[in-house]
């Protein structure tokens, strides 16, 4: 399909990130949608209700009394063979935590949008990646989106990957910066993506006509085997993400990968960022290049499975790496940075200096100038810092 043809089959709408995610869900045709509202995710739910009211969304929306129950309903419906969508944020995903493990262990390809928001206490409604990163080890795939457009596109890709490897997937956007910001979004027509995401038809499903149980007690050996199978599925998911991103690009003109390298070829300093801050970093890179500083950006889109090899390849020529985290694992530091360092180290690239910068915690704005200061700071350091560097103090 030519870009012209692809453009003709998409409608340009002015949407917030939340509404774009809801349109992604609409195109995926979920059959069961248990959702509990929470700021800043609520507009996702509201848009879905509007679409259901208008008769466009035909899945059954279930009002639940908590996110924990919501995820329990997602798991049950998915085991019964339904395509399931939900969305949450912050305290909601924290409350779901127990069920997130259950969803992954039961191999239910649930797709969930999470709007990154600070966790209490103290109370806040602002962007912070800790809520979803805290769920790192639950067995969910995690995609971090840079824009509303990407949220829409990623929901569809996440279903395709999740249903092929039977693992749940989280599509993450940041509070306010993406969730509540209007931007032009290309919404594909349903027929354009129908072949990309055929109906979910698992061979194994719960059926009252043929009752059986799932998730019951296993032996230690069986439990281990289940966990190894999940690990194997995560490995396979790396390939599935790449293929889904490429195929989606052929259909819509927007291709995606697990990571995105921007002007990294000859870069002396490579910024590493995920989510909305990656766009700011891209702007900073352009300005630095104009000023004669060889900066680049490696954007992390996929966090689980962690694309370590792809990252190592992308950072291979860098003299300095500056990982910018909008999160802080208290007592350690930026979570993305830890993962990048571990991947480089295990792949024999441990000599590359990787500096950890914490920026924009609690929704503090990170303008391009701050990203530029991060780069100049990184250039000024010859080795490692003792701990994470606070970008707001540079």
């Amino acid at each position, binding site marked *: 399909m030519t870009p012209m043809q692809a453009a003709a089959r998409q409608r340009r709408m002015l949407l917030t990130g939340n509404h774009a995610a809801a349109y992604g869900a609409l195109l995926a045709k979920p059959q069961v949608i248990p959702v509990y509202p929470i700021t800043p995710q609520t507009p996702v739910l509201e848009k879905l209700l509007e679409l259901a009211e208008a008769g466009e969304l035909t899945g059954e929306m279930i009002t639940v009394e908590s996110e924990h129950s919501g995820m329990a309903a997602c798991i049950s419906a998915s085991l019964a063979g339904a395509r399931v969508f939900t969305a949450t944020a912050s305290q909601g995903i924290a409350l779901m935590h127990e069920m997130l493990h259950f969803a992954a262990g039961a191999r239910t390809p649930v797709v969930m949008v999470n709007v990154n928001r600070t966790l209490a206490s103290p109370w806040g409604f602002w962007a912070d990646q800790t809520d979803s990163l805290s769920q790192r080890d639950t067995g969910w795939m995690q995609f971090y989106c840079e824009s509303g457009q990407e949220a829409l596109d990623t929901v569809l890709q996440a279903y395709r990957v999740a249903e092929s490897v039977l693992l749940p997937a989280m599509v993450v956007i940041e509070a306010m910066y993406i969730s509540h910001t209007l931007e032009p979004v290309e919404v594909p027509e349903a027929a354009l993506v129908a072949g990309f995401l055929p109906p979910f038809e698992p061979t194994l499903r719960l059926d009252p006509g043929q009752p*059986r*149980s799932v998730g019951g007690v296993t032996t230690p050996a069986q439990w281990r085997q*289940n966990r190894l199978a999940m690990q194997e*599925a995560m490995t396979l998911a790396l390939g599935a993400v790449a293929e889904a991103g490429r195929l989606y690009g052929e259909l819509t003109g927007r291709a995606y990968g697990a990571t995105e390298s921007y002007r990294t070829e000859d870069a002396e300093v490579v910024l590493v960022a995920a989510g909305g801050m990656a766009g700011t970093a891209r702007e900073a890179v352009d300005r630095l290049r104009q000023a004669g500083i060889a900066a680049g950006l490696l954007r992390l889109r996929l966090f689980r499975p962690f694309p370590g090899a792809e990252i190592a390849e992308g950072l291979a020529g860098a003299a300095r790496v500056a990982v910018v985290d909008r999160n802080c694992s208290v007592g350690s530091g930026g979570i993305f940075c830890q993962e990048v360092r571990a991947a480089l180290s295990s792949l024999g690239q441990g000599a590359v200096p990787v500096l950890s910068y914490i920026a924009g915690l609690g929704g503090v704005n990170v303008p391009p100038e701050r990203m530029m200061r991060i780069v100049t700071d990184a250039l000024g350091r010859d080795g490692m810092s003792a701990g994470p560097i606070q970008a707001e103090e540079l």
Partner: protein
Amino acid sequence: MPRELGAPRPLGWSEPGRTTLEIKTGGWRTRRPMYVEATAPCRAACPAGEAVARWIELARRGELAAAWALIREANPFPAIMGRVCAHPCESACNRRQHDGGVAINALERFVGDWGLRHGARALPDLPRPGRVAVVGGGPAGLACAHALSRRGYRVRLYEAEAALGGLLRYGIPEYRLPRAVLEREIELGIGPGVEVLTGQRLGANLAWETVAGHDAVFLATGASLPLGLGVPGEQAQGIGNGLGFLRDLACGTRPTLGRRLVVVGGGSTAMDVARSARRLGVPSVSVVALEGREEMPALPEEVSQALAEGVEIRNGLGVARFVEGGGRVTGAAVVPAQLERGGDGTIRPLFRPGPSEVMAADSVLLAIGQRTDLAALPPPLRGARGLIAAGKDGATPTVPIFAGGDAASAERTVTHAVAAGMRAARRIDAVLSGGAPAAPAALPGVRALPAHVVAFAEINLDYFPRALRAGRPERPAPGRVGSFAEVVEGFSAVTAREEGARCFTCGHCVDCDNCLIYCPDMAVSRRDEGGYRLSTDHCKGCGLCAQECPRGALQMVSER
């Protein structure tokens, strides 16, 4: 399409047909829920033992035929009850402690009135050989005749008056119990197995031997002899008894009362007499009662209706003597007094010091009670305190003679009389058939706990938003003293449904599914025939079902 990519068959799936039901977690339990049918306080308080909560439940589901039939198992006269019963059920109603007791009496009238229009006459089950004489066609006798004929016995019903009904016809004015209602309900209650013989007065034209010649006898001759005050001047002209006045009225006679009437008594009869007199055009009607306003045995609504109709009620006064002029009463001398209850249940006035006052009167009617005429009965049946000697079940010392109603009891309400007739019918049936009466069937799988009366604390109020009790519509007072047309109007279907929905249905499962929904172990399942099954294989005894049961139909019991 890489659909088969990875995705080995996940572990933890059982073979088809094998479910977690195999895991019997019931062994963890120290307590278990019991699915019960307990007694609602309304039923415990009902003299006739009507299954009130259950018939309200049927009525609100629109099953009026079933509701009518269920009331009639305990009380064949719901349309009459819904008008004249003193409704102790409403005083006992658990909802009183929430937002006002359920208007049970009005609902009973609603169901009863449905029966007047749509109900069918009582037909016997199977013919049985016994022949029973019932003496007295008032509420007790009618109820007994009804119940026995339903069971297949042939009944001779002897009535002294020209028509059936007893006190219902001759003692309760039409504005409270319209004649058409009375007659239709008697017609529905008395089946073809009952031979009615009117104008047969025991000791006059009906010989004791005739009665005693039956296989069993139920004596329900009522209490027809008026009590007097025993004060000076009582023999003066113009002093009569209230029940006699009401009887005359029922027979079409309109006694002359003058312009000023004093009625003595504080019960329903006093109210009936006073209000009837107002309807006959007596301008000044005063009731003199020993009791305070709140202690009067008349129902509060009767008192308020009487006041609205211009009756004056003077409380805490006793008649010391009557004043006469030329042999005719001209007034009643009243003094401060109160009611004194003797240890044996008798009541008498206790005069207190205070100013005497003469209330002018052209006539006086006494409504202070009646006694039973025992003269026609053989000596063993003449009991203490002027009543026929009979136990709670109606059995007299001379089996198979039974007695009930006002003739054998000091509890003189229509409902007590009906209950006595029904109880005696069960006993007579047991005696004649040689068997015990069958226990009423509970719901499937339900343990009947008749002795457990559901307390207010057992109701889960979260399921019962507050809703005001429906008022009973009344015709406006200014217009109603002009006639004997019925004062209180019935509920509309909408009001009846709304009021019925207020019933907690204490102790009786209504298939609300709460236990099913809340059981975390899915140990509760529906039965095909209605109700629920509790799996002791899986119940861990957490008690959520009993907590969430809105009405106490699940009770936790210890396993030990």
